[in-house]
Every structure is written in C-alpha cells, then in structure tokens.
C-alpha cells in the first residue's frame, strides 16, 4: 500500500480523500494557497505546504509547485480530486516522470476524453449512440450546412470544454454566424483552442451517468448510476443514486454501453460516463476521467468507499468483483453553494443535522475564500424509496442553518418541496425555466 499521498486539491474533496487515506494508514500531504492557510483540509493533513498565492493559476494549477511539494515530502502517489489538475494529461505525465503514482487513468485516456469531439468520435466508433451533431468543423459553410440539416435550436460546443462549460445555444438560423464567431473567440480565450462542434438540443433530456472503476489491468466494473438532471445553467444542483426514473431494462442497457465503451482500453481508476436520456434513448454526452463531486450518493447506497477502493486497486491490494454492487435504498445529494460574497464572508453559523452525511471543507467560524468554486457542502440523505428520500431531504434542509454567507439553501428547500421534483417530471432545463418564469422561486 502507498505510504504517503499528496492531495492536489482543496476544500471538501481534499478532506474526503484524506479520510480514506487515514482508514488505510496512509500519511497525507496537503498543498495550499495563501488564501487557504486556515482551511480545514490544511489542518487535517499530516503535512502541508504552501505552494502559491490565492490565484489558482499559480497555486492549485501550479504543476511544478505541487510536484516539488510531493518530492520534498517523499510521497508515493498524487490524488488530484476533481477540477484543477484532475484531467490534466500533462500533470499526470509529470507525476509519472517523477516516479510518483498518478491516481487516475493513463494520460492518453485523459486527453482522449478531455477532447469532447474526439470522445464523441471514439464512443461512436464503439457502437454507442451519440447526440446527433457534427465532429469538429472549421469551415463556416460546412457548419451552416450541417446546422440546416440538424435544425434548430442547436448547441455550439467547445471541444476542450465539458462539464457544462463552453456551450452556446443557437435558436434561429440568423444567429448562427454571429454566435459561431463569439463561440470561437470564447473558446480560444478560455481553452486556448478554437475547435468547436455542433450538437442537437435533445427534447426533455435527463442527465444520467454511470460510475465506473478500473483496476490496474484495465478491467472495469460499473458501481451504479446517478440521475443529475436537476441543473442550473448546466451545473448540477441535486443528484440521486440510483436513477429512480429508469427501468431495470434501461439500467442493463447502460451497463452494456459502458462496457462497450471501456472494455479493453486499459482504463484505470475512477470515472464517470455521462449520458443524456431523451425519448427512451441514451446518448453519450461525455466521460469524466476522475472522481466526481457527486460520488457520495453512490457510496451511500452501495456501502462502498470508492476512494478507498481506488487506492486499493492502484496498489494491487484488492481485486474487482464481477457484479455491479447491489444498492440499497435511494440516496439524494443537495449541493449547498455560496451565491455571492458578503463582506467578511465568514460562516457565523454552519450547522447540519447529525444523522445525515455532510461532506464539507468548512466549519462554523471559517472564512470562505472567494477565489475558488462555490461549493460549501454536500448534504446526502438515504431512505428506502425515492419518496421517502425526498421527505428526508425536506426535513434535513429545514434543520440546516447557515449564516454569514449568501447561499442557495432557500432554493434547495423550494425545489425539494415541489411535486414536479417528487414525481420526476423535469428535464435538464426545467429549473432554469422555473427560475425565469416563476417569481416565487428564490434566485
């Protein structure tokens, strides 16, 4: 087993990974920016190194600084968490060159799936349905021609985007040319590439994803599915595992598709294959080659600690079973997010009921830095049925108390109280539409 692991991340996910390391008696090394000096994850680590200023480009994205900390601390592995360098093939390669195990898939698979257009092509080549659209097109006339065939509305997507970033919607042919120009400019500045492609907007789509794990020999196992349809501007807000609104046959279909995509490619570590589900069909959306924010709902129903399993597989101290783990009950996660900075931005009150799982990187009294993502806590409940889980989440959110920082708590309470949420009558666009049209919703 590994003796010492560096966690190249911050906040709740750094704490989460360290908890699994402790279970396995692995020493932990945190790296942090000057804005996180007092953070929980820094205190929790066995060793911690300041690697740069608040701006993540010079701290949490500073490959050399992070690796130098790893070398000075003599770590044998790096866990990247999610975001930051988690899907950075170059960083994965650099770790290997320094003799440090990268806890994730091989760099070439990170690159393949990170290039969303290439990933689409790859999925199609493995016989998986992809969302109707194009590959990367440079020529404006070709783009216009394809758009005419596809019909409107359609999406312009940045090939280096993903995770709901780098997407523009075009509702009418007249807008296409100008939107293409804007999209190219945006993707160039955000991702350093002008590669874009077109995708059809699927009607009433739900976001369904599958958690997978691969061992060192690339044998993969499906660990369960999640429904992450509840989104605001393509960012997930509430997740559920397993997806309650698909049938057993559809679930089997997903498992087959994921194996078709990944069998024999040598995938190691955790990953999530995302699909859009529209008119009874699944379409490959993208694959995230890392641990995901919402992994906790899968853990709660399967009883697995998937980070621990990842570490055991990476050190060849565990073997994968053949069966998809039998889940028990339904788990729901709400993402409690900061919605704006207020003065000192200090969590004067930050309290949760004790009988639910809360993953957070903050404690009462902490100041929340405004340089990083808005996630304050993930609140996870579990109950035998979807309805009971929703009721439990309603009761849980009613007891959550947060002051000192503006949050989406009121909105979360409102969503879980609606009938359309309880009955699963919503798509990836529903929440955006409600926020726009129903003024009683907190925004």
């Amino acid at each position, binding site marked *: 087993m590994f003796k010492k692991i560096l966690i190249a991340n911050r906040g709740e996910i750094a704490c989460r990974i360290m908890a699994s390391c402790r279970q396995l008696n692995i020493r932990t090394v945190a790296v942090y920016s*000057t804005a996180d000096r007092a953070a929980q994850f820094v205190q929790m680590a066995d060793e911690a*190194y*300041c*690697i*740069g*200023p*608040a*701006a993540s480009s*010079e*701290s949490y994205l500073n490959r*050399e*600084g992070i*690796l*130098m*900390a790893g*070398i*000075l601390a003599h770590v044998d592995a790096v866990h990247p968490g999610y975001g930051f360098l988690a899907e950075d093939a170059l960083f994965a390669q650099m770790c290997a060159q320094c003799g440090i195990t990268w806890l994730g898939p091989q760099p070439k698979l990170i690159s393949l799936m990170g290039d969303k257009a290439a990933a689409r092509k790859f999925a199609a080549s493995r016989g998986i349905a992809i969302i109707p659209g194009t590959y990367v097109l440079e020529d404006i006339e070709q783009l216009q021609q394809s758009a005419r065939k596809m019909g409107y509305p359609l999406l312009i997507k940045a090939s280096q985007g993903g995770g709901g970033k780098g997407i523009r919607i075009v509702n009418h042919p007249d807008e296409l040319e100008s939107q293409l120009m804007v999209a190219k400019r945006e993707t160039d500045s955000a991702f350093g590439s002008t590669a874009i492609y077109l995708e059809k907007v699927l009607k009433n789509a739900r976001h369904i994803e599958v958690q997978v794990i691969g061992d060192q020999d690339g044998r993969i196992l499906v660990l369960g599915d999640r429904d992450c349809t509840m989104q605001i501007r393509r960012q997930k807000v509430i997740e559920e595992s397993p997806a309650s609104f698909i049938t057993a046959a559809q679930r089997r279909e997903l498992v087959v598709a994921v194996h078709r995509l990944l069998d024999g490619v040598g995938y190691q570590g955790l990953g999530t294959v995302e699909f859009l589900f529209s008119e009874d069909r699944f379409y490959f959306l993208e694959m995230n080659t890392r641990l995901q924010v919402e992994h906790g709902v899968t853990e709660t129903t399967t009883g697995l600690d998937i980070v621990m399993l990842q570490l055991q597989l990476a050190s060849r101290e565990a073997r994968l079973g053949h069966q998809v783990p039998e889940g028990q009950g339904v788990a729901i996660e709400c993402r409690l997010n900061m919605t704006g900075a207020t003065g000192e931005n200090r969590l004067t009150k930050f309290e949760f009921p004790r009988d639910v799982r809360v993953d957070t990187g903050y404690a009462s009294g902490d100041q929340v830095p405004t*340089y990083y993502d808005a996630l304050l806590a993930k609140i996870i409940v579990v109950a035998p049925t979807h309805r009971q889980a929703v009721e439990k989440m309603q009761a849980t959110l009613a007891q959550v108390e947060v002051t000192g920082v503006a949050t989406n708590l009121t909105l979360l309470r409102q969503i879980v109280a609606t009938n359309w949420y309880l009955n699963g009558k919503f798509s990836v666009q529903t929440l955006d539409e409600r926020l726009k049209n129903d003024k009683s919703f907190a925004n």
Partner: protein
Amino acid sequence: MNEQQLKQLITDLAALDFVHAKIKLDDFELELERPDTTSQFTQQKQTRGDVIVVKSPMIGIFHVNEEPLQVGQRVETGMTVGQIESMKLFNEVTSPASGVVERVLCEDGQTVEYDQPLIEIREGA
C-alpha cells in the same frame, strides 16, 4: 451600461487592490484578471516599519550565495540574495530594496514554502 459608465467603473477599479474581480449588475457581467504583483518574485516584499521581508517566490530548497549573506551586510536593489531550487531549476531571489541585512531566516539547503520569510533587510540604513 454605456461606454462612459464602463470606463468610469474600470478607472474606479484600478485604484483597488485585487487580482480577480467579477462584477454582475442585472444582465451586465464583467470579469477582470490582473497579474498578482505580489507574486513577482523580484518585487516580493512586505514592509514592516523600515524592515523589508524578502519572501520565497516558490516552494523549493533555499540555497545561499557562494559567499553567504551576513547580518549587517549591505545589499543593493536587484542583488541576488539567494536561490530557490525547484524542480531542478535554480531561481534567483533578488533584493527588492537597498539596505542592510537585519536577519537571515533560513539555512542553506532548507525546504521553504511559497511566501516563507527568507531575509529581513533594513531599508536605506
């Protein structure tokens, strides 16, 4: 927001000390990034009275000069006061001011973090 208002906003912002700013007014959104000048390691300094603390520009191993700095020694602006070895590269740390070495806070070969105080210089003395 019209052009004049926008220009005024940018002028107002210029006076503030920030690295990253995101401003949202109804439909108007402005995002600004500015280089973090405190991280420019030749200018890494923090005044405390008239003592200037030279801080490490990065995580690495501190190396003294061939002739190590001595307390009481005179240094000029831009003079190399030591080096930080990081990922096999040696990065010179230069003095942000002219003055006299007041304290040397780390030893040769010591691991230093980003922002760790290395040397104190009494300015002008």
